């Protein structure tokens, strides 16, 4: 495995008696989108703020691009990009001014105009920050995180306030940023975002990491398995129990639920058609990251 671009070992941060980050360790490889997924208050934001040299950790070792955030904060901040929660611009600052200003903080000359149009901000160039909608502000703040062409960018709840279409567009743009070689650390409590966007994912709960893997890896390790659901009036469905990969078959009136694993959907569907049963509501439910989280932590993300 190549040398990680970020390594965090036994990170700890407390506020008085409150332990925000207990003992957190993970590594991020160059060029990947790495996600920290967990409920609010799990310690995700505190962790990435320690990594970005915005907070002093109480313990542990952090290296980003070979730099120690505790002692090399200035150098580090020039090389990374960050979109933080609870950060804003002055109300009367215009969109183009913000990009122009933050481009001036970059170590080398950068073309902020291309970024402005990539993030759909060119029509808003002259608009004041105070007059932007929540989603427009968010887009501008993400663009500002990228304006210095960082090697690593930290995005903390980046799609907050975006509508579903803008959210998807944002995911596409972030993938493009990764494809150009930038490493992305994503903090999110949003399952779909973690599943669709992240190459690898750490599930964080109560200041600790409970699992790290690809989203697919986490989900396929879930023993709850796949559920195939459909309606059928036929009484005898025992033939399904003999199908490969099928575990249990349950029915409640016309509703049938077949529990299995792997390619169980295709196998069940084939067998149903063979028996002349062609339900028009055949669907499959796979375990989600929510199930993974529930099993690993014993409580739901929303608790």
């Amino acid at each position, binding site marked *: 495995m190549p040398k990680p671009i970020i390594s965090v070992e036994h990170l700890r941060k407390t506020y008085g008696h409150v332990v925000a980050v207990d003992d957190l360790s993970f590594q991020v490889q160059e060029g990947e989108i790495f996600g920290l997924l967990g409920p609010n208050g799990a310690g995700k934001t505190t962790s990435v703020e320690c990594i*970005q040299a*915005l907070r002093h950790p109480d313990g542990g070792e952090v290296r980003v691009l070979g730099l120690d955030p505790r002692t090399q904060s*200035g150098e580090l*901040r*020039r090389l990374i990009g*960050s979109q*933080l929660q*609870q*950060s*804003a*611009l*002055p109300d*009367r*600052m215009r969109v183009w*001014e913000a990009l*122009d*200003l*933050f481009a*001036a*903080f970059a170590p080398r000359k950068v073309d902020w105009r291309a970024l402005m149009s990539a993030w759909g901000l060119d029509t808003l160039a002259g608009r004041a920050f105070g007059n932007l909608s929540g989603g427009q502000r968010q887009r501008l*703040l993400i663009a*500002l995180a990228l304006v*210095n062409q960082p090697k690593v960018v930290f995005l903390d709840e980046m799609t907050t306030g975006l509508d579903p279409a803008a959210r998807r567009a944002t995911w596409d743009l972030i993938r493009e940023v990764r494809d150009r070689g930038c490493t992305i650390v994503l903090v999110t409590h949003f399952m779909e975002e973690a599943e669709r966007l992240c190459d690898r994912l750490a599930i964080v709960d109560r200041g600790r990491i409970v699992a790290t893997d690809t989203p697919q890896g986490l989900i396929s390790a879930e023993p709850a398995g796949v559920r195939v659901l459909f309606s059928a009036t036929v009484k005898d469905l025992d033939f399904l129990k003999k199908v490969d990969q099928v575990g249990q078959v349950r029915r409640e009136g016309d509703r049938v639920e077949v529990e299995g694993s792997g390619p169980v959907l295709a196998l069940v569907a084939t067998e149903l058609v063979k028996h002349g049963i062609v339900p028009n509501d055949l669907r499959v439910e796979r375990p989600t990251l929510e199930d993974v989280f529930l099993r690993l932590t014993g409580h739901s993300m929303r608790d």
Partner: protein
Amino acid sequence: MRQLAKLTWVEIKLFARDPLTMVFSLAFPVFVLIIMAGVFGNTPDPEGKVWAGVGPMDYLVPGFCGLSIAAIGFIALPIHLALYRERGVLRRLRSSSVSQLALLLSQLCVSALLAVIGAAAIVILGMAFNGAHAPVSPAGFAAAFVMTVVCFVALGVLLGAVLPNVQAAQAAGLALFFVSEMTSGVGPPREVLPEAMQQFARGLPLTHAAVALQDPWIGRGVNFTELAIVAGITVAAAVLAFRFFRWE
């Protein structure tokens, strides 16, 4: 350097777009001077007891330059910084490797520009329309002016750093400003204040800055004692401001 220049230029533009701050820090001293001019004119007290023996306008014009600087340092700057911190603007700037020195120097540059504009308005109003005389020692006045600007910027940054939020900055800033205006010899002349109030006013930076500004203007020469006091306040405030400055 590039950071500082860009930041300063953007801050100037933002200030120009904010009419409320502009009115308070630049226009308010001008309005009060117009009232003072209407009430007192520029005829010296026949007994020579008040207005330091010179015409009220000659006494007030340099003092009001100080008052205008105090409005920037006591009101505009602390509120500005507290608001930036509360809103997360400072957080945003910090994470883009803006240094504390660049940020604070940009505030000094913007404040200095505002102070010059404010002083120009006061001097023009006083000399062209209300009979104030030109300064006897322009260089002495300029030196005191520069010192006063740096002093009040340091005080403003310190206030912005130690006051917890915008409301506190507003309350403390307005209180300091109006108490200074009434007792520092930039409104009612120093001589008419009761002894106790004069004693109290000696604890206010504007009292010393006002004398340092007035003396070279009205022909009493450069007041090195008062200049030294202002410089001392500046150093202390700057050290504390740098020490206690918080990004969030």
